[in-house]
């Protein structure tokens, strides 16, 4: 087991109170596994990604543990977490387009960055990895502004994985890209895993169709909780959680026409996480909800091997 997260709780401090963005989530990611993390805005997926590597000032680690390769990560402690970053856990942020220093040539910046982590830059290795994502080596002599969005994204991918981290977190890295670039970037991620540059990966996106293309396992989150986690094809072909079912049914596919098959969304909106309702957090929007859903929170149960569902009706 590469990554094991147990009952992790991360809250945001606001003036109005604590926003329970991540409220007790448990899952694990195996070696060589790509976990796709899907859900709507505000479901806690970005909080989870950030929580595993760097909490910002407003985030607070309330409880739960994160274990990576048998070691417990001190995620609540910014200073103690530092040695793990980049070496063991690495993140490609949502806006990595702007994550590169615009005044430095890329090659120079990479050198400085790696040195700041106390490692010597292996040029040949760097070149090999540029080849892997089909970037010309000349990009090292250019400034970030001279690269297109897709190239920047791939460059950041190369930089983040240079020290062969055990876990790579990719947060919405393709959402600003065109479809063809998106495909290239997503395929490059899979290539990194296949080449062994990273052991396991969490791929965060709101686009389930995209996750399906590259993830081995998909985890659907709702309102700070796990709704369903299963192998990618199972989630797509036979989802058990009503939220996952409705979400997947609301996706238009190429070939599906309004006139032939009218899709529908999920009525209502997610609950406020300042003061989440008791019981199941999806029950207000759920067509299957019954009395028990309001009284008791459904635990995530393994209904079949590697298939977890948090629903009383599943």
């Amino acid at each position, binding site marked *: 087991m590469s990554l094991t997260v147990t009952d992790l709780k991360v809250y945001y401090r606001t003036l109005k109170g604590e926003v329970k963005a991540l409220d007790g989530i448990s899952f694990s990611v195996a070696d060589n596994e790509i976990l796709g993390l899907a859900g*709507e*805005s505000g479901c806690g997926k970005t909080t989870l990604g950030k929580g595993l590597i760097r909490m910002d000032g407003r985030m607070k680690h309330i409880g739960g543990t994160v274990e990576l390769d048998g070691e417990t990560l001190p995620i609540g402690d910014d200073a103690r977490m530092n040695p793990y970053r980049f070496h063991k856990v690495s993140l490609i942020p949502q806006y990595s387009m702007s994550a590169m220093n615009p005044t430095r040539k890329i090659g120079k910046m990479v050198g400085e960055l790696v040195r700041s982590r106390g490692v010597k830059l292996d040029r040949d290795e760097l070149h090999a990895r540029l080849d892997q994502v089909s970037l010309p080596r000349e990009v090292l002599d250019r400034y970030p502004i001279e690269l297109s*969005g897709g190239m920047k994204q791939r460059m950041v991918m190369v930089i983040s994985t240079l020290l062969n981290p055990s876990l790579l977190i990719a947060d919405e890295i393709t959402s600003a890209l*065109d*479809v*063809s670039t*998106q*495909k290239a970037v*997503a*395929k490059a991620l899979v290539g990194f895993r296949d080449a062994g540059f990273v052991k396991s990966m969490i791929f965060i996106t*709101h*686009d*389930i*169709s*995209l996750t*399906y*293309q590259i993830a081995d396992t998909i985890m659907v989150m709702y309102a700070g909780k796990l709704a369903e986690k299963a192998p990618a*094809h199972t989630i*797509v*072909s036979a989802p058990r959680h009503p939220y996952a079912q*409705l*979400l*997947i049914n*609301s*996706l*238009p*596919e*190429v*070939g*599906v*026409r*309004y006139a032939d098959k*009218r*899709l*529908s*969304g*999920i009525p209502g*909106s997610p609950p406020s996480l300042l003061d989440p309702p008791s019981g199941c957090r999806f029950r207000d929007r759920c067509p299957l909800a019954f009395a028990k859903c309001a009284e008791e929170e459904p635990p995530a149960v393994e209904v079949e091997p590697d298939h977890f569902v948090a629903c009383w009706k599943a």
Partner: protein
Amino acid sequence: MLELHDVTKVYKVGAFGGKTMTAVDGVSFDVGTGEVVSLIGESGSGKTTIGRMILGLTSLTSGSITLDGAPVKPGKAYYRSVQGVFQDPFSSYNPVFKADRVLRMIKEQYFPSVPDWDDRVEEALAAVRLNPGQVLDKFPHQLSGGQLQRLLIARALLLEIKLLVADEITSMLDASTRIDVLNLLADLKARGLGVLYITHDLSLGNYLAERTVVLRHGTVVEMGLTEKVFGDPLHPYTRQLLSAVPRLGSPWEEAAPADGCLYHQKGATGRLLAADEGHFVACAGLDDCGGPAA
């Protein structure tokens, strides 16, 4: 109803406007009454510029855009027939005012003394399935993206428009609310409205539109009935786009190779040729390009 003829937009760029950049290059298509046409393109394809030109927010360099035969003339009369909804719902509302101000603006400009205004508002809100109590008298940041976009559509309905230009209106919405906004656009057809749906997302365009126009670098590469463009894509670029769309249940496959078509070679502007009825494709017309012969 709406006709674009050879529309071109050239921007001056660089110091003192010394260089030029052609954003839209000789685009012609039309949108009929009660029809949804989707305009599909990646970033930099000129799709948003075309939308803005139809709305009169950007001027044309050459060519013409006409509505029922009359050229676009930005002003009160024109905006009574043509309205737009934009990508970012939060930027579409003035943050210092309440959201329903967009409706009041319509009243002020067009119907200053309509006695049954509140009824009309209620009717328009009902048409976009909004509950007046939930959206009126709220600040934009108190509403969800889906609510804000639907409120903008309601605003357009108050004017009894003929054409709605919807520029990426669902790209910032969550999947579970996105489809409801799309269905709403489709329902507008029943009211006899024409909709130009501008998007980068092929599956959304495909879901909604009768006809599809595929843009690349400011030119139309393929257009026609949606089932033909998507079902039997002829242009290599369309094929490449379609193959890159992630689909549930079927893994990515490689695009069919782009045979020797000149479309990607420099200088090939690509005339639109009729491949079959209601299906046009840009092609240099060479025998070996895989497209229809000239």
